């Protein structure tokens, strides 16, 4: 899936996260994660984000995540929502989302 425009999903409310995606001119994939619980859960959040982006076949773009203590399922859902918005895609491909 190709990110063709800037897009945002999520909020900065507790238990949620804000995901910003944008196309990358460098044709690389850069993921930045900020979290209040980065010391305890940083690795886990990165793992979920990476797996979610891989399933969506996102290979380039910038992804910035501001986590407010979200559970894995919310991370997955918000990353998917931001990518789908950024890719102008409304179709849900269950293989990529499950």
């Amino acid at each position, binding site marked *: 899936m190709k990110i063709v425009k800037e897009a945002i*999903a*999520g909020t900065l*409310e*507790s*238990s*949620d996260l804000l995901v910003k995606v944008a196309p990358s001119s460098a044709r690389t994939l850069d993921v930045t994660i900020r979290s209040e619980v980065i010391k305890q859960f940083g690795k886990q959040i990165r793992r979920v984000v990476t797996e979610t982006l891989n399933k969506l076949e996102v290979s380039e773009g910038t992804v910035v995540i501001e986590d407010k203590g*979200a*559970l894995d*399922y*919310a991370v*997955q*859902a*918000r990353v*998917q*929502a931001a990518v*789908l*918005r950024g890719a102008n895609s*409304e179709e*849900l491909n*269950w293989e990529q*989302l499950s």
Partner: protein
Amino acid sequence: MKARRSMLFVPGDNPAMLSTAFVYKPDSVMFDLEDAVSPREKDSARLLVFHALSLAAYKDIERVVRINRLDSEYGLKDLAVAVKGRAHVVRLPKTDSAEDIRELEAHITRLEKEYGRPTGETKLIAAIESASGVVNALTIATASPRMIAIALAGFDYLVDMQTRRSSGSEPELFYARAAVLHSARAARIDAFDVAYGDVNDDEGFLREVQIAKQLGFNGKSLVHPRQVELLHRAYAPTQTELERAKRVIAAAEAAHRNGLGVVSLDGKMIDPPVIHEAELVLSRGQVA
């Protein structure tokens, strides 16, 4: 028999509530994709609800998804998420006629096949929110074998009736409550009373719970987690009621053993309706 006293609304775009609603132990949790979610957040909420449906914490709770109406641009997308996510029940808002249910059922049957779910596994609840819906409640309740309950939704209904909520005996809801409840009972399905919106008014909430319970509703739709325990406590039988019910059942069993058709207890006749009522009290006692 599945207890359906409390159906707790959880906004589909709110991870804090989606992640914690199970803590309050409602009989059913209803992930809402309709009114609680703004149009521009429908896509994101759908994904949250899809993943929340598979959380282990909800394993033992009936999972309901309230979709948008099928004639909106969101309805079918919501429905796909609910069926693919293995929701137990789909709740259709603003159900005005049996045709609404038949149309929904056709889509669900198609989606169940597509997603490898057994046909008929996804159940239905119709929310009645208009004068037409109330008048058609019986045909709605019997429109599909998937129907497990009908729920009266007060706000839109009262707007349609050109009136508004009062406190106290609520005469404005009298006919709709009676009609919805009779339809549910005639169809042998469950009935939910209206939600009570003032979450800080426990007294008003409990007054309304008593009306619903006395009329015979299985329970209520709830808009705040703190209402769950209040409702469960109000629906729980008292110790005296439980003891009386046990004695009724014991007397009926003794009569059956002795080949007697009718028996009396404390000078009152114990017949099938009394026995049925005692069984209901005991089943409520078990879930309380």
